């Protein structure tokens, strides 16, 4: 069986990137890639159990811990996209057009405008918490009030948040591919602090003897190779590039 299992997150899957990338890889190597897309935490845990050959997520500190714990061989940067804050057209907090994320978050908090957070310890959630902290707002203290932790994936949080008229932080790729936008628009974007770095790690075959090291390594190598990087850059939705390759930078 020439296949490997990649533990990844919903954002890469929902954006359609894998549907574009994997056939190219398989055409070249004959290796089938099976993607299990779950929450970042769950993906890391699954990989740590040895239930995957490659881990492909966006939560750098957790990834580094994964390698340090001996579960992964080595971590490579692959690409980044950026987070954006989307909001309803009537923009209740008046933050539309801003490119200063901490200022925008402070305004939202002061206006007590509803904000939907994933609240699931995912990469996106962790990034969001970092930004609140930088803004000096203790948002989780308002949990259940204007700050609403949906405790679910990006898609579910977008579905819920748009229905609540809440601001939501999401990654651009998921947002562009998202089908239930309603009257929502991107309100805040362009702040450097909203970069979202993806990494790829081969699961350590010494700790987890079941890992198909050779095939997995082939995938990792291809993704960070110029060929893989070009494929990532070439993936567009509605004419927009979703991911920006930065391996080896």
């Amino acid at each position, binding site marked *: 069986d020439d296949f490997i299992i990649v533990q990844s997150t919903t954002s890469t899957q929902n954006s359609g990137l894998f549907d574009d990338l994997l056939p190219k890889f398989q055409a070249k190597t004959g290796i089938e890639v099976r993607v299990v897309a779950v929450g970042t935490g769950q993906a890391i845990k699954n990989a740590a159990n040895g239930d995957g050959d490659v881990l492909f997520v966006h939560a750098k500190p957790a990834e580094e811990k994964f390698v340090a714990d001996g579960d992964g061989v080595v971590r490579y940067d692959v690409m980044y996209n950026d987070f954006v804050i989307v909001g309803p057209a009537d923009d209740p907090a008046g933050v539309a057009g801003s490119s200063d994320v901490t200022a925008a978050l402070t305004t939202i908090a002061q206006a007590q405008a509803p904000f939907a957070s994933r609240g699931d310890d995912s990469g996106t959630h962790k990034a969001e918490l970092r930004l609140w902290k930088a803004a000096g707002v203790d948002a989780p203290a308002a949990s259940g009030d204007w700050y609403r932790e949906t405790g679910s994936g990006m898609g579910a949080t977008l579905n819920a948040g748009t*229905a609540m008229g809440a601001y939501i932080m999401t990654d651009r790729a998921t947002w562009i591919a998202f089908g239930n936008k309603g009257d929502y628009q991107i309100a805040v974007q362009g702040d450097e602090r909203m970069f979202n770095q993806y990494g790829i790690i081969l699961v350590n075959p010494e700790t987890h003897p079941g890992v198909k090291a050779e095939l997995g390594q082939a995938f990792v190598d291809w993704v960070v190779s110029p060929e893989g990087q070009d494929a990532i850059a070439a993936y567009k939705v509605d004419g927009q590039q979703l991911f920006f390759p930065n391996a080896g930078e």
Partner: protein
Amino acid sequence: MQPDTGIIAAAMGLILSGNADLIEIVGLSLRVTLSAVILSCAIGLPLGAAVGAWRFPGRGVLAVLLNALMGLPPVVVGLAVYLMLSASGPFGPLRLLYTPTAMIIAQTILVTPIVAALTRQAIEDLQSEYGEQFASLGVGPVRRLSALLWDARVGLLTVALAGFGRAVAEVGAVMIVGGNINHVTRVMTTTIALETSKGNLQLALALGVVLLGLALVVNAAVMAVRGVSARAAHA
């Protein structure tokens, strides 16, 4: 992985800790589930009994439909209710989305066909015994239902428990219409799903054990009542 005893111990620890969040979540779970089961029985018992006991055109089709609706996918029900209750939906002005009420509505839709389909079968069996006697006495259609439901009550308890089982374990629909919002609509199953997606598998399992314990307590209580009622009714 830790051995299973670890999970049971963790579950025990969770219960004994008397953690306020856990109590809140368990309370909401029970409230939503029991409300949905009561509503489902209020609709499903008479509905199932009518399909089981009355003769009318389309009865067979209705029976098949009820059986098929036992396979209503929770996510689909969740979505449908979401679209109804969302601000741009017909019931948007009621502002029910992301409230326990929305969760109760979704679960009621899921559980009612189960209660109705299983009730139909139970009532059909009893009707084949009572039918001629009722016809001879000239029992009217409504009283026929109530009498059959009453005399079948022992078996219908199991039906209600099947409905309870489905409701208490349900996650897909309540996640969509409730939103799993902390302190507002977070119940046991959505918490378990959340902890799972966080990779806290042990905690998720321990919560699952607590949930099962809850189901066990409810079932034991109901069966104890059944034991008493059966003694009076059966023979």
